[in-house]
């Protein structure tokens, strides 16, 4: 490898680290992303042009076509996608990365330049194939689940045992292929197929609420696949870039689990839906709910001095993020102190709600994180909960039998009045009853979030 290319890879690696670091602050994040992107571009062009191989022109042309083709498609998808669809998009792109790693492994296994007797190399290739295949099929299943193509949670009986036996089988078989030095393409395609099947088995039984955790985990795996491929080529930018994504992805996964009070083990092996299923029928003891109208809510808000808005995914589904911003501006103009309380897992991924609200021009300074806003609910005259459910369920505090017991929540029940906008009394993602709705301070404003908020804004304008 030429010195120039090594230097380019070194620069690219540094841009990845600096870029990730800068992504950690809202002010520098955009720059961080651009820096990492520039480093990536540098690494890609360096790889294409700086080498001492005799490469026929046709191959350059093909590489050029592939890059332009992939670049244009990727760009169009990225520009067109709605912000509410972000989680499934990340999942889809991630799947492509995994597929790319698996394909590289497939080609290199058949490559005669590589001595099949070198156990390290065979092990590396097989890891790239298996990990790449798992991320590819797993990400596609996650994508299908998030965009609603795959609706139901498919639970094969004893899927834990089956899945674990399956992955152990893959590892053992890979070990056998490495140890025996068998240079058989049959084994190769067998492992590829097994990886694909495991990806499906792994993601299929996982509930929708846990999907962000799974995507983050798969993202981390793609990084590891890239790093493994880097070992194969003794390529530092792939190795370090891949490991960075791998370890960052694991930390992010753990952070997400923490925000939902779940352990990684319970996400992968757990049965959220199953244990919640037995909890039904207890709502008799919860009392009755109180309905309210948009005009009553408008009056209450008009005379409040502190209002806290708790947005949930229902807000995003109804595309009501622009209306809620209008409501907030209107109230602020009337001298009401308005804030948004953002639960770490509001939306479908951590930080997803922030993106959605930022899209509708909500001032970043008005978004308060859970730990900062929780003490302020005591002083709130009105809390407006829009399309959120489990993140405001007091059962997390006081019902040890609840599946969400111990999950950090927004303490909205401390406010003087709570108005909850929901489409119906349907339970939230966790599938459990919410006693907040039966609280004597709570009134329910039923209806589609966008319609209800538009009506509310209309009432306020007339005051």
């Amino acid at each position, binding site marked *: 490898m030429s010195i120039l290319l090594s230097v380019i890879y070194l620069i690219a690696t540094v841009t990845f680290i600096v870029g*990730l670091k800068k992504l950690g602050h809202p002010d520098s994040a*955009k720059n961080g*992303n651009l820096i990492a*992107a520039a480093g990536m571009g540098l690494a890609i062009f360096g790889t294409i042009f700086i080498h001492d191989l005799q490469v026929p022109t046709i191959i350059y042309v093909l590489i050029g076509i592939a890059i332009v083709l992939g670049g244009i498609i990727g760009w169009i998808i990225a520009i067109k996608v709605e912000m509410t669809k972000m989680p499934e998009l990340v999942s889809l792109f991630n799947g492509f990365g995994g597929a790319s790693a698996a394909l590289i492994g497939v080609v290199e296994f058949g490559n005669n*330049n590589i001595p099949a007797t070198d156990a390290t190399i065979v092990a590396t290739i097989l890891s790239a194939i298996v990990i790449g295949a798992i991320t590819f099929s797993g990400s596609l299943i996650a994508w299908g689940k998030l965009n609603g193509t795959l609706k139901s949670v498919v639970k094969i009986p004893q899927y834990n045992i089956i899945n674990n036996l399956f992955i152990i089988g893959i590892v053992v078989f890979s070990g056998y292929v490495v140890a025996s030095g068998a240079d058989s393409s049959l084994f190769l395609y067998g492992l590829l197929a097994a990886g694909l099947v495991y990806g499906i088995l792994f993601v299929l039984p996982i509930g929708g609420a846990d999907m962000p955790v799974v995507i983050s985990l798969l993202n981390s795996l793609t990084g590891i696949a890239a790093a493994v491929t880097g*070992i194969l080529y003794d390529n530092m930018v792939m190795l370090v870039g891949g490991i960075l994504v791998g370890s960052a992805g*694991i930390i992010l996964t753990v952070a997400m689990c923490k925000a939902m009070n779940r352990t990684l083990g319970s996400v992968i092996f757990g049965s959220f839906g199953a244990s919640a299923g037995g909890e039904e029928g207890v709502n008799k003891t919860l009392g009755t709910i109180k309905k309210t109208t948009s005009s009553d809510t408008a009056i209450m808000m008009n005379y409040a001095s502190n209002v806290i808005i708790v947005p949930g995914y229902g807000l995003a589904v109804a595309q009501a993020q622009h209306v809620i911003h209008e409501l907030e501006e209107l109230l602020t103009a009337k001298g009401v102190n308005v804030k948004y309380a953002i639960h770490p897992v509001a939306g479908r991924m951590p*930080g997803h709600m922030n993106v959605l609200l930022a899209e509708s021009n909500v001032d970043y300074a008005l978004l308060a994180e859970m730990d900062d806003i929780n003490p302020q609910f005591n002083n709130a005259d009105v809390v407006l909960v829009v399309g959120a459910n489990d993140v405001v369920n007091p059962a997390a505090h006081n019902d040890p039998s609840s599946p969400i017991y111990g999950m950090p929540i927004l303490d909205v029940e401390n406010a003087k009045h709570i108005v909850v906008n929901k489409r119906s009394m349907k339970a939230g993602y966790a599938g459990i009853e919410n006693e907040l709705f039966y609280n004597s301070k709570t009134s329910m404003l039923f209806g589609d979030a966008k319609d209800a908020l538009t009506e509310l804004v209309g009432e306020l304008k007339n005051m």
Partner: protein
Amino acid sequence: MNELITFISNNLQITYILILATFVGIEVIKSIPAVLHTPLMSGANALSGVVIVGAILVMLHSDPQDYLALGLGFVAVVLGVLNVVGGFAVTDRMLEMFKKKK
């Protein structure tokens, strides 16, 4: 066990890099606030597209007559670029919205 020790001593440099890069990844991410987790996930996802470097190497090393290797390499490059360009572009779009409003 012996094989593992031999592997590590044969690949000492890579082993060092693996361990150090793991810690860098953890430390860099640890301080990131929850609000930025979505763009971070998307940005890290774009970075994992670095696998495209390998896909390009596959194509550069292929014999022009080896249609299978070239074809698979071609698909790998397309998918890798999709991951990289799409990932960075969508992260940029998200972060554009975080810009401070005047």
